[in-house]
C-alpha cells in the first residue's frame, strides 16, 4: 500500500471513529440509566412511582411517588413557556423583519450574550432581586415559588427561541415577501400571513428546543423555586422539580440503595420527556405541507 493510500485509509478510520463515538456514548448512557433506574421497580410498583403523591425517600418505609415532582417541573415549564414563547417569537420577528440593520446587529449580540450567562448566575440574580420582589408585590409568604422559577427560566429559554426562530424567519425566501407586498399586503400582513406561515416549522422547533432547555435546567430552578415536595396547586407556591431532586439528593444516597435507584428512575422520566420534546421538534422541522 502506498503512503498516500495509507493516509487516506487512516483519516477515514479516524473520522469514522469520531462519528460513531457520540452514538456509542448515547447508547452507553442510556444503558447505564436504564440498568440503574429500572432496578427500582423490583421493589416499587411502576404505578406507585409515577402516580404516587408522596416523595419521602428516607422515611421508613420509603415512599417514591414522583407525581409532585413531575407536576413541579410541568408548572415551572409551562409558566416559562407562556412567558418566553410569545416574547421570543415577537422579538425574532422584530429582529428578522422590522429592525434596521444596526439595531439588528445590536439585538443579535444581546441575545447571544444572554445565552452566555451561566444558569447559576441567573439563579443568583433571581434569588436576590426577583424573589423578594415577588414576595413583596404579590404579598406571598415566600418569593421562592414556581412563578419566580418560570420567570427566570423564561430568560434562559429566550435566546434559544429567538435565535432559532430568527434563523427560520430569515430563511424564508425574499420572494414570498415581495409577492405578498405586490398584492397590496401591508408589512404586518405579509409577516403574519406569509412569512410566519412559511417559517412555522422552524418556529415550532425553536419553541420545542427552548422548552427542552427549560425542562432540563437544574441550577437556577433549585435556587429559586423553594424545593418543597408537595402536590402543587398554584404557580405561587414553592415546588420541587425533577432535576432539582436529582441534584439535591444524589450526594446523600447510598450507592445501590432504593433511593439511589429511584433518582436514576427520575432520570429516565426526564429522558423520556426531553426525548418526546425533541421528537416533536424534529417532526416539525421535517414536516411537509400536505
Amino acid at each position, binding site marked *: 500500500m502506498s503512503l498516500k493510500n495509507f493516509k487516506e485509509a487512516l483519516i477515514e478510520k479516524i473520522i469514522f471513529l469520531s462519528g460513531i463515538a457520540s452514538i456509542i456514548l448515547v447508547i452507553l448512557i442510556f444503558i447505564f440509566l436504564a440498568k440503574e433506574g429500572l432496578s427500582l421497580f423490583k421493589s416499587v410498583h411502576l404505578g406507585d412511582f409515577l402516580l404516587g403523591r408522596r416523595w419521602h425517600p428516607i422515611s421508613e418505609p420509603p415512599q417514591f411517588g414522583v407525581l409532585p415532582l413531575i407536576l413541579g417541573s410541568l408548572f415551572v415549564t409551562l409558566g416559562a413557556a407562556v412567558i418566553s414563547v410569545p416574547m421570543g417569537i415577537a422579538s425574532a420577528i422584530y429582529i428578522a423583519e422590522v429592525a434596521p440593520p444596526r439595531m439588528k446587529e445590536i439585538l443579535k449580540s444581546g441575545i447571544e450574550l444572554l445565552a452566555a450567562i451561566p444558569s447559576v448566575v441567573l439563579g443568583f440574580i433571581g434569588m436576590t432581586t426577583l424573589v423578594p420582589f415577588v414576595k413583596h408585590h404579590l404579598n406571598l409568604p415566600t418569593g421562592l415559588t414556581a412563578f419566580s422559577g418560570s420567570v427566570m427560566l423564561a430568560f434562559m429559554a429566550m435566546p434559544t427561541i429567538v435565535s432559532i426562530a430568527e434563523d427560520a424567519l430569515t430563511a424564508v425566501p425574499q*420572494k*414570498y415577501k*415581495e409577492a405578498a*407586498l405586490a*398584492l*397590496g399586503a*401591508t408589512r404586518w400582513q405579509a409577516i403574519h400571513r406569509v412569512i410566519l406561515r412559511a417559517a412555522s416549522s422552524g418556529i415550532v422547533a425553536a419553541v420545542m428546543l427552548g422548552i427542552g432547555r427549560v425542562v432540563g435546567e437544574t441550577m437556577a430552578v433549585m435556587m429559586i423555586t423553594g424545593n418543597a415536595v408537595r402536590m402543587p396547586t398554584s404557580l405561587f407556591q414553592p415546588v420541587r422539580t425533577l432535576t432539582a431532586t436529582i441534584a439535591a439528593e444524589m450526594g446523600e444516597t447510598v450507592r445501590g440503595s432504593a433511593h439511589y435507584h429511584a433518582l436514576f428512575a427520575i432520570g429516565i422520566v426526564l429522558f423520556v420527556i426531553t426525548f418526546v420534546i425533541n421528537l416533536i421538534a424534529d417532526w416539525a422541522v421535517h414536516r411537509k*405541507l400536505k
Partner: protein
Amino acid sequence: MNLNDQTIGNDILPGDIRPHINTELQNGKPLFVSHRKPLEESLENPIPQIMVKELNFYYGRQKALSKVSLGIPAKKATALIGPSGCGKSTLLRTFSRMNDLIANARIEGTVTIDGRNIYDRDTDVVELRRRVGMVFQKSTPFPKSIYDNVAYGLRIVGIRDKKTLDQIVEKSLRQAVLWEEVKDNLGKSALALSGGQQQRLCIARALAVGPEILLMDEPCSALDPNATARIEELIFELKDDYTVVIVTHNMQQAVRVSDFTAFLYLGELIEFGSTQKIFTVPKDRRTEAYLTGKFG
C-alpha cells in the same frame, strides 16, 4: 374577450400584424417616441395610462435608469426589451414602487398613473399595489393551498364571505386558464403544481385583487416552451381588459404578445413605438443591432 381564437397561438412573425393594430397605424398617428424627442409626442399614444417623465434611478451610486420618458397606453400590452442590465426590470418595478424595498435605491422624476404621480408623498403604496399587480420571473406561490393562494389578496382586505371568495377565486383561475386543471384539487399545496401552472396561479392571484395594470417581469424565463406558449396566449387575452407591461429577453415573445415595445440600453430608453415598427423599421441603429443579434 373579443379576440378570435385563430389568432391565438399562431406563430406570429415580425411583420405579421394583427388587424387591430394595423388600423391604428393607418390612422397615420406616430406611435413611437424616442427619449430625444419632446415629451409631447408620447402623449399622442392612445390613452397613456402610465406616464414616465425624466426618470432617473440609482442603486447607491450606480445609475440604473437615465432620463427615461415614455407613455404606456391603457389596455395594450407593452414589452420592455433590451440586453441584461439595461434597466428594464428596474423600470417595471418602479410602476408599483417595488423598489421601495431596496435599501439604498433613489429615484428622480415622476411616474404618473391615471394622472397621479405615484411618487408623491401622500401616495398610499398598499392601494397602488392593489391597482398595479405584479408577476415575477420566478413563480412565487405561497406555501399554502391553491385556493388560499388566490384568496390571499382578498383576505388581507377583510373579505371573509365564503361565497364571494369562492366566486372570485374561480373567476380568477378561469381568467388565468388554470381552473380546469385544478378545480378538483383546490385544497392541494400550490407547491405541488408544475412550473407553468405555478406561474398561472401567480397570475390568477394577481388578478383576484382586481388590478387595472399587470406588470410581468420575465414571466416565462423559467418555463419550458409549452408552458411559455400557454402564458403567452393568456397575456394576449388579458390585454383586452388590463394594461399589460411585460419585461422579456425573448424578442419573439415581444413580437407575439405586445402591441408596443420599448427598447432600453444601458439605462436609457433608445426607442419606443408600436411593436410592428420597432421590429420592422427600427429608427435607431442600436435597436437594429440588438434585434439582429449583434449584441445582447
